[in-house]
């Protein structure tokens, strides 16, 4: 078998393998939707999570962690989430009646469908399962707990209009394990998603 034939077979094989799998890339929420203006105000309710022992119940860690998206105006607040009304609010101290059992955290987002195909997000609030053990970047170690920094970075991706990516290593990849802090840092795929929307 000469070199050209080997090369041809290799190229065909690569094309077949590449075409057999869905493209690896971010996915936006559908219908496509985004906030009207940036920076997007996301507030973290200042009553923290009782399982996090960093002095603020994870509030300070989350306020800092979600800035990783670059288009977030992040602060803490003494006002709890009001569903259906902005600003987006992260609640570390309640499951909102939604996120129980095997749910770690959940984002409830609201929008009006328009004819333009470019809908506006009016509100998005994040709730946390208080029956789960979490830890933050403000704590020295981890023992079977879930990283609140990374989990909230992922949820805020939903808040701003991004769905799940099939790129392993992206913050918006739908899988995370206990004590895994990788989601604290955005991958190129995550940046591509946010740059697509805003």
């Amino acid at each position, binding site marked *: 078998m000469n070199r050209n034939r080997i090369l041809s077979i290799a190229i065909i094989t690569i094309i077949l393998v590449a075409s057999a799998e*869905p493209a690896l890339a971010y*996915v*936006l*929420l*559908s*219908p496509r939707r985004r906030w009207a203006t940036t920076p997007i105000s996301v507030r973290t309710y200042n009553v923290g999570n009782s399982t996090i022992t960093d002095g603020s119940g994870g509030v300070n860690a989350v306020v800092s962690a979600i800035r990783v998206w670059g288009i977030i105006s992040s602060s803490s607040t003494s006002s709890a989430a*009001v*569903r*259906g009304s902005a600003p987006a609010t992260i609640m570390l101290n309640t499951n909102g*009646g*939604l996120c*129980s*059992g*095997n*749910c*770690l*955290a*959940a*984002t*409830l*987002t*609201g*929008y*009006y*469908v328009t004819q333009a195909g470019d809908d506006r997000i*009016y509100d998005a609030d994040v709730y946390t399962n208080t029956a*789960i053990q979490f830890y933050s970047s403000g704590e020295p170690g981890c023992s079977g707990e879930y990283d609140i920094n990374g*989990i909230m970075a*992922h*949820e805020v991706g*939903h808040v701003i209009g991004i*769905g*799940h990516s*099939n790129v392993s290593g992206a913050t918006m990849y*739908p*899988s*995370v*394990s*206990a004590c895994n802090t990788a989601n604290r840092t955005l991958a190129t795929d995550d940046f591509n998603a946010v740059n697509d929307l805003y």
Partner: protein
Amino acid sequence: MVRRTLSLVTLMLVLSALPVAASQFIDMPFDRVAREANLVVRGTIGETWSAWDDAHEVIFTYATVRVNRYFGETTGPDTVIIREVGGTVDGYTQEAIGFPVIRRGENVVLMLSRWEDGADYRIHAFNQGKYLVRQRDGGEVLIADPFQQGDERMGRERGVRTQALDEAPGLGIEEFARMVDDARVGVGHDRGRNQQQ
């Protein structure tokens, strides 16, 4: 033993063959989901409707499920009403990203548990408690639902997932019934997948 192993392998294929799109959930072993569920039913989604809760904070979607089979020792009425977070009222849509979607006309197997207020049922363990039923080779097989709230429902991604649905490995419904029976009497079928999805 061999049958259990085959069941486990098939279930893992069913759960892993399609794009995983759950939000941040901890994956639960099949046995635990089946054991914790109040009802395990095979049925068809009938009428669906959405409404705000009393506090006008959350939109819920309700659905009637016409039940034609109960699994395990569970039994109940011919029609069960289920309620899930998310829906559209007066043009305003609320979605809980990654939560199950309820669609009229779907043939489904559902593992159901009561809401904390006990009023009605929800899908237990979110998407782990829902399977789509498909006819293949004269029998029914169960397939994991590739669509969840917030997912792409139009365009290229929908095509990919619909195609994946048609090609996905299925778990025979009688095998599923045996697995539920075993789970509810404490015979383990799997140890669950690692961590969460």
